[in-house]
């Protein structure tokens, strides 16, 4: 998932729930899937729209940092792989906007909210991709962190979202392997390539940890989303899991995780690690990341420059329908 700080609606105790809400919660507790036409609390619907929309936006904005290197990919094969990957991301965007549409919000409406800055996308895509090693590190760390979130979401309570996640997870795990393969090549390459690999890890490590969102142990929103099975694990659980999985992978590459306090903790069976700089995270969310303006600007420009194209398709379809109607008379 690429959703961070998704505000959840509601959070009622069983005593406060209406009979409908109680029946709904019972269905979720039994592990049933909620389907589009079925009754659902307004808060559930709104929270899901926010979360799925944020995820969809992340996929399409996420095309940009990787698209940045397609024209400079170092071999024809790497270029083809990167193109296929970025194409997959656009496809994920499409599934997710479709899932959101089943909740009564159109893709255009969601796009407008994104362009107006009223909906977010993952903070990670506001960081630049500066060397070819970033194509490896994005696949390895960013897709790796996304998978950590998305695998449990395959069991989320909302049917269309769950099914989209199942498809997306298959492709994302392939992306992560591709990213790691680039990192291996770089880490075993020339001194310059190794330097690029270490530099990519240095720059992307903490932003990747931020992808899970701030600690949510006290968050009411998280509790409600977890009760609805829109969110399956806490941010801290997933972050810990990500660190535990990633540190040995970095060691295998011969790279150093940029955290002097990183240490295996036998007692908890996981690593102790430093928190990212959360003030930086909130700065990025507020629009002050290194690429916020470029990323959103590129999306707005694509949308505005393409208006004539979309309008023309609509007008042509109307003309064609009118001609068919005349022909049928």
């Amino acid at each position, binding site marked *: 998932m690429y959703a961070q700080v998704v505000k959840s609606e509601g959070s009622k105790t069983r005593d406060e729930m209406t009979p409908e809400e109680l029946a709904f919660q019972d269905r979720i507790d039994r592990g049933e899937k909620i389907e589009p036409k079925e009754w659902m609390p307004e808060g559930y619907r709104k929270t899901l729209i926010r979360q799925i929309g944020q995820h969809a936006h992340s996929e399409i904005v996420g095309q940009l940092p990787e698209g940045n290197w397609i024209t400079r990919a170092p071999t024809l094969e790497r270029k083809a792989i990167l193109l296929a990957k970025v194409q997959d991301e656009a496809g994920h965007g499409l599934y997710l906007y479709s899932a959101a549409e089943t909740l009564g919000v159109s893709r255009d409406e969601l796009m407008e909210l994104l362009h107006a800055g009223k909906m977010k996308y993952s903070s990670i895509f506001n960081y630049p991709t500066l060397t070819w090693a970033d194509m490896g590190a994005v696949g390895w760390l960013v897709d790796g962190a996304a998978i950590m979130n998305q695998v449990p979401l395959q069991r989320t309570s909302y049917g269309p979202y769950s099914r989209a996640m199942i498809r997306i997870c298959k492709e994302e795990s392939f992306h992560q392997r591709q990213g790691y393969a680039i990192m291996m*090549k770089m880490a075993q390459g020339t001194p310059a390539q190794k330097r690029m690999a270490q530099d990519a890890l240095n720059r992307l490590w903490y932003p990747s940890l931020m992808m899970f969102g701030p600690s949510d142990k006290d968050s009411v929103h998280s509790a409600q989303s977890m009760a609805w099975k829109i969110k399956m694990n806490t941010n801290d659980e997933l972050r810990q899991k990500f660190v535990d999985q990633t540190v040995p992978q970095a060691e295998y590459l011969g790279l150093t995780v940029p955290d002097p306090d990183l240490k295996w903790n036998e007692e908890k069976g996981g690593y102790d690690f430093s928190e990212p700089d959360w003030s930086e995270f909130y700065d990025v969310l507020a629009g002050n990341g290194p690429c916020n303006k470029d990323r959103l600007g590129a999306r707005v420009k694509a949308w505005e420059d393409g208006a004539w194209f979309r309008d023309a398709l609509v007008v042509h379809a109307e003309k064609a329908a009118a001609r068919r109607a005349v022909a049928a008379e």
Partner: protein
Amino acid sequence: MPSLPDMNTPEVAELARMQGAHAHPPVPAPDAGEQALFECLLRIGDSTLVLGHRVSEWCGHSPALEEDIALANVALDLIGQTQNWLALAAEVEGQDRSADDLAYLRDAWDFRNLLLVERPNGDFGHTLMRQFLFDAWHHEFLKGAAASTDPRVAEIAAKAAKEVAYHLERTSDLIVRLGDGTAESHRRMAAAVEALWSYTGEMFLADAKDAEIAARGILPDPASLREPWLATVGAVFAEATLALPDSAFAHKGGKQGIHTEHLGYILAEMQFLQRAYPGASW
């Protein structure tokens, strides 16, 4: 203007002689027939490479999500075809170069792509028009090449023809919709025809190398593709309410390595890593 000093002193002549004596022995040139085939394979392989590059510049910036997906798909097909054509070119050349060496380590004057494909993207209508004019030619070219007397060529062409049939179907459909859409879309598409038409003639001009390869039945005769191409373009333009230009002027030179100014920038970007870090493996 001051006269320039005479540089042809005896010392200079001697230096040149010594230089020549220490140069590497020349690599035996492939025979003329293989040389012509090599050149003709570069003409198609470089064209798909450069067009794939141009199309991929749109990634994440197109007018609709479906278009982002379709463009990435087209670019991916073109890059895949490039891998096949340039690998065969390298094999024919027999100088121990790979497809990547050809793509990443030649300068513009050694590229043999059509000028049409290196034209800048312009607006989305311009990009689609360039693609359509190319697709309509590419489709005919591959149909001919799929019947090649060289089974290696026939195999690559047959696979590519399936992909390009889809490219042509897609661009034909969009040209009709945009030509016969709004007044603005019509104006943009007509402007694209105007801007690009003079780059289409090169596709049908044969030089001695084309003629030789066509005579051997390896690739179709460029001139033979013009009529079916014009039939496709004419039919689509008619439905799109776009006028077929009557100008026969053709810019040419790409197939012989004389390009527009744009190719140098494309290569500077494409080849950056291979040039900046020579010998690295990626």
